[in-house]
C-alpha cells in the first residue's frame, strides 16, 4: 500500500524545526523512517503533517566531551557501529548498534528515531538506560535534559512532549564499570526476542538492563555471585520483577540466558 497524503516540511536547521513543531504539534517527525515509513505504507499511521529532519546535518555527530561522548540524534546506526570514538569508549554500544536490523536499515535508521519510537525490542533505548545516558531535548521553549531511565515510560511511550524533538544524547565515561552485551534473535537482522546489557562495578556488583522482555527497558541493580548456579538464581529472581508482553515463561528463560552471556562478556573485559 501507499501512504496517505500529508503536509510536508523539510526545515534546514533546528530553529526552524522546533518552530514547525510549535505551530503544528500534531506533526510527526521523520528521521530515518525505518519504522515510521513501514507503518505509513500499511496506513497504520496517517500523520497529517510530516516534519522531515533529514536536512538537519547539525545533529549528525559523535564528539568527546569532558564527561564522555555526545552523539547527535541524526547519527545513523551504521555510523554508531563503525565510529572509532564509540568503539574506544563504549564497545557495547558499537556492538549493539551492529545488531539493529540489516545493513541497509542501519544505513538509514537514526539514534534519535530509535529512542523516540521506543520499540521495546530495540537495542538503543536499553543501551541508553544501561550506560546512564542523558537525553537532550529541544522545543521552542528551549532545551532540557532527561536521564534515559526517566525518558522511557513504557510500550512505544516516552517523556517527549508533542512540541519537542530529541537532539542527541550524552553518555558519561566510567572508569570503574565494565559493560557487556548479548541478544538472541531467530535470524541475524530480526528483532531480538530478548537482550541484555550488564554493568559490572568491581567484580560482583552492578546492574542488568533487559530489552525485548516487556514494554520497555528494564534496569535492575544486583549483585553477581561468582558461582554460576547462584548467579542464575539471582537472574531468575530478577526476571520475576517484570511482565513479559507474551510467552512469559519462555521470555524469562531467554532473559536469564542473555543476562548470563552479557555478564560473561562484561567479565571478559575486566582484565
Amino acid at each position, binding site marked *: 500500500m501507499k501512504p496517505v497524503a500529508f503536509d510536508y516540511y523539510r526545515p534546514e536547521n533546528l530553529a526552524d524545526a522546533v518552530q514547525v513543531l510549535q505551530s503544528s504539534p500534531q506533526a510527526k517527525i521523520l528521521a530515518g523512517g525505518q519504522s515510521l515509513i513501514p507503518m505509513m505504507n500499511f496506513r497504520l499511521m496517517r500523520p497529517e503533517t510530516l516534519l522531515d529532519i533529514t536536512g538537519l546535518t547539525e545533529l549528525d555527530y559523535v564528539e568527546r566531551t569532558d564527561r564522555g561522548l555526545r552523539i547527535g540524534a541524526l547519527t545513523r546506526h551504521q555510523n554508531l557501529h563503525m565510529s572509532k570514538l564509540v568503539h574506544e569508549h563504549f564497545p557495547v554500544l558499537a556492538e549493539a548498534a551492529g545488531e539493529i536490523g540489516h545493513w541497509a*536499515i542501519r544505513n538509514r535508521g537514526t539514534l534519535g528515531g530509535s529512542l523516540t519510537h521506543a520499540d521495546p525490542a530495540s537495542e538503543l533505548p536499553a543501551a541508553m538506560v544501561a550506560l546512564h545516558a542523558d537525553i537532550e531535548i529541544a522545543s521552542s521553549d528551549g532545551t532540557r535534559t532527561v536521564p534515559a531511565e526517566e525518558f522511557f515510560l513504557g510500550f512505544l511511550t516516552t517523556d517527549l512532549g508533542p512540541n519537542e524533538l530529541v537532539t542527541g544524547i550524552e553518555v558519561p565515561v566510567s572508569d570503574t564499570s565494565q559493560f557487556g552485551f548479548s541478544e538472541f534473535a531467530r535470524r541475524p537482522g530480526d528483532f531480538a526476542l530478548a537482550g541484555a546489557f550488564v554493568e559490572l562495578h568491581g567484580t560482583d556488583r552492578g546492574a542488568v538492563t533487559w530489552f525485548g522482555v516487556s514494554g520497555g527497558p528494564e534496569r535492575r541493580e544486583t549483585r553477581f555471585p561468582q558461582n554460576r548456579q547462584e548467579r542464575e538464581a539471582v537472574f531468575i529472581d530478577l526476571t520475576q520483577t517484570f511482565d513479559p508482553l507474551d510467552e512469559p515463561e519462555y521470555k524469562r528463560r531467554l532473559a536469564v540466558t542473555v543476562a548470563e552471556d552479557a555478564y560473561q562478556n562484561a567479565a571478559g573485559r575486566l582484565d
Partner: protein
Amino acid sequence: MTTQQNLTRIQLSINDEQRTVDVEPRWLLSDVLRHELGLTGTHVGCEQGVCGACTVLVNGQPQRSCLMFAVSAQGSEIRTIEAATPVEGLSPLQAAFEKHHALQCGFCTPAMVLTAEALLKMNPNPTEQEVRVALSGNICRCTGYQFIVDAVLEAAEAYRRVSSTTQREGQ
C-alpha cells in the same frame, strides 16, 4: 481529503546523471524510480523493508528505496541496477552471477548485485560469513543463497585486483 497533492521539485543524481523530478511528498523513492523515471530494474517486493528487493545505493550505501520518500532524497546520489553494466560488457560481479547460476527468477538479483557491489567496494576481501551477513537483508526464495555467495566471493578477486592496481597507481 484530497488525493492529489502539490508537487515538489527535487533534484537527484541518478546513475551519474542530474535528474529533476516533480514528486508528491508521499511518493516512495522506489515508485519514483520506477514510475517517473522508468528505472524498473528496482524491484518492489514487500514495501515494508523486509525483503530487500528495492535496495539501491544512496550516496554509495545500500538503502531501502521503499522506506524513503523521494522528496527526502533531494540532493542524493542514487545508483540503480541500470548503471551496473560497464559499456564493455558484464561487470565482474554480473559475470560471476552468470557463471555460478546465482539467480533463477531474478527478482532479487538487482538488489543482490548492488548490495554485493557496495560490500566489495568497502571490503574487497570478505570472508564467506561477511558476505552472508551483508546479504542477509536481501531475501532470495530460489537459490538457497549458496551460489550467490560463491559468485560474490569469486568476484571479490576481481575487485582486489582493481584496488591493488589503484593503490599502485596512487603511489
